[in-house]
């Protein structure tokens, strides 16, 4: 039995350490950054930007451990391509190539592997990148519970070329800027969770997993003054908004009625007791732009299939102290917090 008393911190990794919330932030700050300390890592951006002859190289990596491996709207393979491509794209880079590391569990049906690799190929084609190097390892089937077989883990790394003249960063965020999102939120997390929990929402709930580099290319090509982009994955849009607030020391005001959310997703979130703002997306990007350019950004989004449901959801304000606040549908106000870890579906 663990010797840890409540209220005294952790001496082992728990699942919530991987939830993308406060607990993970603390793990990174306290256990990863100090021994590895360097300026580029400390920036904790989606990708590192490295000087390169003739421009800048953008470099990122991500690992994928989702269960189930296949879910409505996607699978771990599509996720592994889209996630890494998106981490490059939101930095303002054009993705160039990916690596693919596969960790296969003993017993994985080859037919499943074939489907997932085909999905990787399809997503890579869609994103216009190639998988140019890879590695494969096999591990023993997890000892113990029959359910512990996870089958397959993926790591992808990606490199991209930084676009010239693009200036993205939280330091550019200013009072009056607008906040946009490219479509309905919370669909990936809810689709995966509903499969996992055996709750079917008339199978209309599908993951939004998609490579966003084409959409971001369209947006940046307008020349609009886009100041910051981030894909809202684990932690949902609440996590990204909290990042914007914390780094810019400006308040963020979001209008609930303007946040795109399908009726099915709203009901599913209610049923699971989850706040849609904190549920993961895999094809949604939060954009901060100068207010005067909001329409240009929206028009560019709506001209792309991945941005049809785009909306202006809020703005940066000078209210003090800096907080993320939601103006609710009924006209009330509440604070939006970064989720602290894995969100647990409620009991009843």
């Amino acid at each position: 039995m663990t010797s840890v008393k409540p209220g005294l911190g952790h001496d082992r990794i728990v699942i919530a350490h991987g939830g993308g919330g406060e607990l993970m932030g603390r793990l990174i700050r306290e256990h990863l950054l100090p021994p590895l300390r360097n300026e580029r890592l400390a920036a904790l951006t989606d990708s590192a930007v490295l000087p390169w002859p003739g421009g800048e190289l953008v470099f990122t990596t991500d690992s994928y451990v989702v269960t189930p491996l296949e879910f409505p709207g996607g699978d771990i393979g599509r996720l592994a391509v889209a996630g890494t491509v998106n981490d490059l794209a939101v930095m303002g880079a054009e993705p160039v190539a990916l690596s693919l590391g596969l960790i296969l569990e003993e017993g994985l049906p080859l037919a499943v592997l074939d489907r997932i690799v085909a999905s990787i190929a399809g997503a890579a084609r869609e994103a216009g990148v190639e998988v140019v190097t890879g590695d494969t390892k096999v591990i023993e089937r997890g000892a113990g519970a029959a359910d512990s077989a996870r089958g397959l883990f993926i790591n992808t790394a990606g490199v991209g070329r930084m676009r010239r003249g693009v200036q993205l960063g939280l330091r550019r965020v200013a009072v009056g800027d607008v906040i946009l999102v490219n479509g309905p939120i919370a669909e990936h997390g809810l689709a995966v969770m509903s499969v996992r929990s055996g709750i079917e929402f008339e199978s209309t709930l599908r993951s939004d997993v998609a490579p966003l580099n084409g959409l971001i290319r369209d947006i940046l090509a307008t020349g609009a003054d886009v100041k910051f982009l981030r894909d809202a994955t684990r932690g949902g849009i609440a996590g990204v908004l909290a990042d914007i607030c914390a780094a810019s020391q400006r308040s963020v005001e979001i209008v609930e009625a303007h946040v795109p959310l399908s009726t099915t997703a709203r009901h599913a979130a209610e049923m699971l007791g989850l706040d849609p703002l904190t549920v993961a997306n895999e094809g949604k990007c939060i954009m901060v732009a100068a207010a005067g350019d909001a329409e240009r950004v929206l028009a560019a989004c709506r001209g792309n299939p991945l941005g049809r449901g785009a909306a202006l959801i809020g703005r940066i304000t000078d209210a003090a102290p800096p907080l993320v606040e939601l103006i609710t549908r009924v006209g009330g106000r509440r604070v939006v917090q970064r989720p602290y870890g894995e969100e647990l579906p409620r009991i009843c």
Partner: protein
Amino acid sequence: MSDRVAQLVDELHGVCRDVGRRIQVMEVCGTHTVAIFRTGIRSLLPANLRLVSGPGCPVCVTAQRHIDAALELAGRPGVMLATYGDMLRVPGRSGSLERLRATGAQVQVVNSARTALDVARANPQRPVVFLGVGFETTAPATAATVLEADRDRVENFSVLMCHKLVVPAMQALLDAGDVPLDGFLAPGHVSVIIGAQAYQPIVVKHRRPVVVAGFEPEQIVRGLLALVRQVAEGRAAVENVYPGVVTADGNRVALELLRRVFVVADAPWRELGVIPQSGLELTAAYRRFDALQRFELALGEDEGHPLCRCGEVITGKAEPSECPAFATACDPLNPIGPCMVSSEGTCAAWYKYNRVQGSGGGGQGAGGRGQGPGAQRVPEGQR
């Protein structure tokens, strides 16, 4: 703002103004607590209408001795413990199920009792214990699952019975009499099962209005309006503003399941002690599925944390911000009390939606900026 809700809010302000004095009502259910914060309703309420949270979060009221028993069972070689996810972080005396799982214990999150039974079928060589937690909402599913286990002779399945009943807890609060309450906003989910008439004792014996409401903003405000109208008129009746979903008599099939499989018994509640006739135990016919009996385990005692005021929070005596541990020693990363663990816990709701503390006054958190003079965010370093 939705016009209908705006109009109801206006009426609510009008009635509360007419009453003049402070009106204190308890929302019994954790789902109401969270909905009232999440929808921003709290920030729209009249200053003299105070909402206090009740003992209606199943995670929060589960006695520490039950968590300790779950930890003890999950720590035994070969045993698999199946639990609803939000029980994972609830602290017992020696840690939580989440931490125990990190040390190698087989703790599996399930979303229904039925799934726990499936786990038992898939692992016939291993004892599978389901942590049976919740009110009348989840208890019928546990009952149905026990019947199924009995029918199919899934003998490696058992239940650690922690199921509780809502109305006896409401009565116990009124009997104790140390929280002034003008009425109850009764939980929609539970009422679907037990029916609105189940609250009659509160009305008859304690002369307090009970209004059953749903969870949409309009339904909640309508419920509060019905409550304060009764207060204004000096009435005490059971009123159902969730018609079509909640009936007078409840769900007969579910109630029959409960009667068939369980008997009502005294039960320990976290921080509240043993409340007479407030819990469910397996009847003799199904007692072989009782985990305590099967593993010859006796419940211990609860040992409260010296700082934790969860007991006062779930009985409406204290607001989370009045607890010295709130957002300092106790936060969702390192919860001391269960109210900080559950997504429906009062402290977690305050932490998540209301961590802008007013500097006193009525102490009613409003969920927005600058409610009350000197509104202040808990400093980052304290978290």
